């Protein structure tokens, strides 16, 4: 497919859609689907048929619009009705409501189901990565093309050199959204420059590439589902981002590593790959250019450590997901010994809009060092839970109290946890801190992949630390000693504290151990595992002290025994 053909598809799809006066968007993301939203879509379809409105209105299954706590959600977008063009959002929709919704098309909204679209949950957000989630049908490539999909790929293939693409990404200031925030352009540049013959390689038969692009969709943080929503709701954008990355770094083959726990994302990505291949947007000679790029899905199998680059590579190679010391970094020595670019789903989803709208546009959003937006999975003790996308630099207060709607009745805010098991708990005193990589790191947490869990005054912070440490202990691969044995001992000490059996000596041992595991573990899992303990010790130390047993030991001369062991 070339640019003209792409434009033709976009045009005819838009034309077809313009013929309908009403579009009913039903969320079929994992959370709404669990509440039978697919049945609602069928019921709406049936109601349209019954009322003879098929020509007038269309039902579309779309990805997650974000407000999961009010699901199942149905959005009705009307070109023209008594009130002019407008959108309505219906919450907690049931199959029985379908007929009523259809009956009210073009007329008065169904008041009992309506939830305002101008509430802060929506108005305070800024959607780039999620702009298509809730708008396009993730199972139809034409729908994606109609909103400008694959235009960015065509643009780089026909108008830009690989170096120009890398320069554009560099200038945009985009940083990795998987957690550490490494500058994306720098990473691309390193892979592009890397010599595939520097290290001995071992590429399997049948794979024609000496460099690789890996999309990291192994979203392992408990309480995080940003990448899942993007893969489910807008899979083509991920593919487009990968192909652009492949062109920029000189790779002809890409892998998407997805958790097996995300069957819907896997299914939609598979469909998307098939469609893109059929349309000539993946495969050989894309857009009539010499560039070839294929994408394959690899399933994770339940190992958090595989989110770490080198462990992920070991897993794709078919082995135990063990990390290895870096350097050499995957950019030079990666999959089967080849230079490999590993980017997170959200990072790659940012690429097409940057190419289309330009680096300057992207760099105008966010803060000085953190550009663009960040997607968060807002969960825990807030009124509105779900998926949000906000400009970098927004404050935690705005996220929790404006977008999240604050605490449920009668509860007060205690802390917000970001970064999952690798992050930290941020207390109320930092609510007005801007959310960016540096500020979060300064208070002992991390941006992480975007889990944001709000905790109220009833939350036991020692228990929170223990919960995360149990997670890291179970997920430690066991290769290096500090992480394998250290997390076990930290967990043991935290349990001892919880049970009121710990002494001040134990608290000191705990702090020393956290320091050890943080600084001597082989990979990011171990290096960040103590963060939840360190941050709760820092901000909620009195909760630890309240559970500590005062040491009863008194020496013969009546002095308290302070220093022992």
């Amino acid at each position, binding site marked *: 497919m070339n640019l003209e053909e792409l434009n033709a598809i976009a045009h005819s799809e838009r034309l077809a859609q313009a013929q309908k006066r009403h579009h009913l968007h039903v969320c079929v993301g994992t959370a709404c689907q669990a509440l039978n939203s697919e049945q609602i879509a069928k019921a709406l379809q049936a109601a349209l048929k019954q009322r003879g409105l098929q020509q007038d209105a269309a039902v579309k299954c779309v990805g997650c619009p974000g407000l999961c706590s009010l699901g199942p959600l149905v959005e009705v977008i009307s070109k023209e009705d008594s009130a002019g063009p407008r959108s309505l959002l219906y919450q907690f929709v049931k199959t029985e409501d379908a007929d009523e919704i259809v009956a009210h098309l073009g007329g008065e909204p169904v008041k009992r189901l309506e939830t305002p679209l101008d509430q802060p949950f929506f108005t305070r957000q800024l959607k780039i990565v999620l702009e298509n989630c809730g708008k396009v049908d993730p199972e139809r490539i034409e729908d994606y093309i109609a909103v400008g999909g694959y235009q960015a790929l065509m643009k780089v293939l026909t108008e830009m050199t690989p170096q120009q693409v890398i320069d554009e990404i560099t200038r945009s200031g985009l940083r990795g959204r998987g957690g550490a925030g490494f500058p994306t352009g720098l990473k691309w540049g390193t892979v592009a420059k890397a010599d595939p013959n520097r290290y001995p390689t071992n590429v399997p038969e049948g794979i024609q590439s000496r460099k690789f692009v890996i999309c990291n969709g192994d979203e392992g943080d408990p309480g995080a589902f940003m990448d899942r929503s993007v893969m489910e709701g807008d899979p083509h954008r991920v593919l487009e981002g990968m192909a652009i990355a492949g062109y920029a770094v000189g790779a002809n083959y890409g892998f998407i590593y997805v958790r097996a726990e995300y069957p819907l994302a896997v299914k939609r990505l598979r469909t998307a790959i098939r469609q893109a291949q059929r349309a000539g947007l993946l495969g050989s000679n894309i857009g009539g250019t010499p560039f070839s790029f294929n994408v394959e899905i690899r399933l994770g199998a339940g*190992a958090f450590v595989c989110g770490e680059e080198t462990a992920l590579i070991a897993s794709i190679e078919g082995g*135990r997901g063990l990390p*290895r*010391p870096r*350097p050499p970094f995957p950019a030079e020595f990666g999959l089967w010994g080849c230079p490999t670019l590993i980017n997170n789903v959200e990072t790659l989803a940012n690429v097409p809009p940057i190419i289309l709208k330009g680096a300057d546009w992207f760099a105008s959003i966010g803060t000085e060092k953190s550009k663009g937006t960040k997607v968060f999975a807002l969960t825990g003790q807030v009124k509105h839970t779900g998926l949000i996308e906000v400009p970098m630099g927004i404050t935690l207060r705005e996220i929790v109290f404006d977008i999240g709607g604050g605490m449920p009745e009668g509860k007060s805010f205690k802390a917000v946890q970001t970064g999952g098991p690798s992050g930290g708990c941020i207390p109320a005193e930092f609510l007005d801190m801007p959310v960016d990589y540096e500020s979060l790191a300064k208070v002992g947490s991390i941006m992480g992949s975007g889990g944001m869990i709000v905790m109220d005054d009833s939350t036991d912070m020692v228990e929170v630390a223990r919960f995360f440490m149990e997670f890291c*202990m*179970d*997920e*430690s*691969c*066991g*290769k*290096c*000693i*500090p992480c*394998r*044995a*250290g*997390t*076990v*001992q930290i967990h*043991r000490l935290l349990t001892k504290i919880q049970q009121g059996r710990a002494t001040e000596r134990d608290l000191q*041992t705990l702090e*020393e*151990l956290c320091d*050890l595991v943080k*600084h*001597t*573990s*082989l990979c990011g899992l171990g290096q960040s595992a103590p963060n939840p303990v360190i941050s709760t010790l820092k901000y909620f130390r009195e909760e630890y002290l309240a559970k500590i047993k005062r040491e009863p030991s008194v020496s013969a001369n009546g002095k308290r025994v302070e220093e022992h*062991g």
Partner: protein
Amino acid sequence: MARTLTINDQEISAAEGQTLLEAARDAGIYIPTLCHLDGLTDVGACRLCLVEIVGSNKLMPACTTRVQEGMVVYTDTPRLRAYRRQIVELLFAERNHVCAVCVANGNCELQNMGIVVGMDHVRYDYLFPKLGVDLSHERFGMDHNRCILCTRCVRACDQIEGAHTLDVLGRGAHSMIVHDMNVPWGEATTCTSCGKCVMACPTGALFKQGSTVAEMVHNAEKLAFLRAARERRVWNV
């Protein structure tokens, strides 16, 4: 091409491509290791050889870090010493290491490491896991109580003998060395009974049957000899 660098304020020269560990040892500077064994590839897992490199905010394993021109390295700072002792204590607490009744008593790298790091006691709770002893092989035995999961045996079996009888089962603290598909050693059909795993073992986890307390000697250097003989036709006798 030679590289010049400083280790512990001592200027040394090293060959390009050498690891910090090799360069340090050539210069007579000792860096403690457990998972490293001459003749096997390095995995950087035990973290005892971590060193401080000026200009890097991370501690780097000497066994996998290559020398660079002008590098300034410290291998024995108070901070590193404290970390090393903690790591060795974690190992002693993890499984059931009873030096007094061990075949490797007096010839054990873990026991020696305790002395090197100045461990007079273990501050962590001993975990006392219930682990087995496999005596099904006619000549050798494996006592999981004494295993530190350094994977030297796994690498020796794969890289030098080529049988790959051994691998690691499970993960994290539940990791265990296995023979074939977790069968008793004596029933492992891929095992050639060459004994290289026993040579590679730093502790008394792998031993020759019939040896009693303090009788076990490992001959780990035989593995480096074998590799040199096979790959470079060099017989260091």
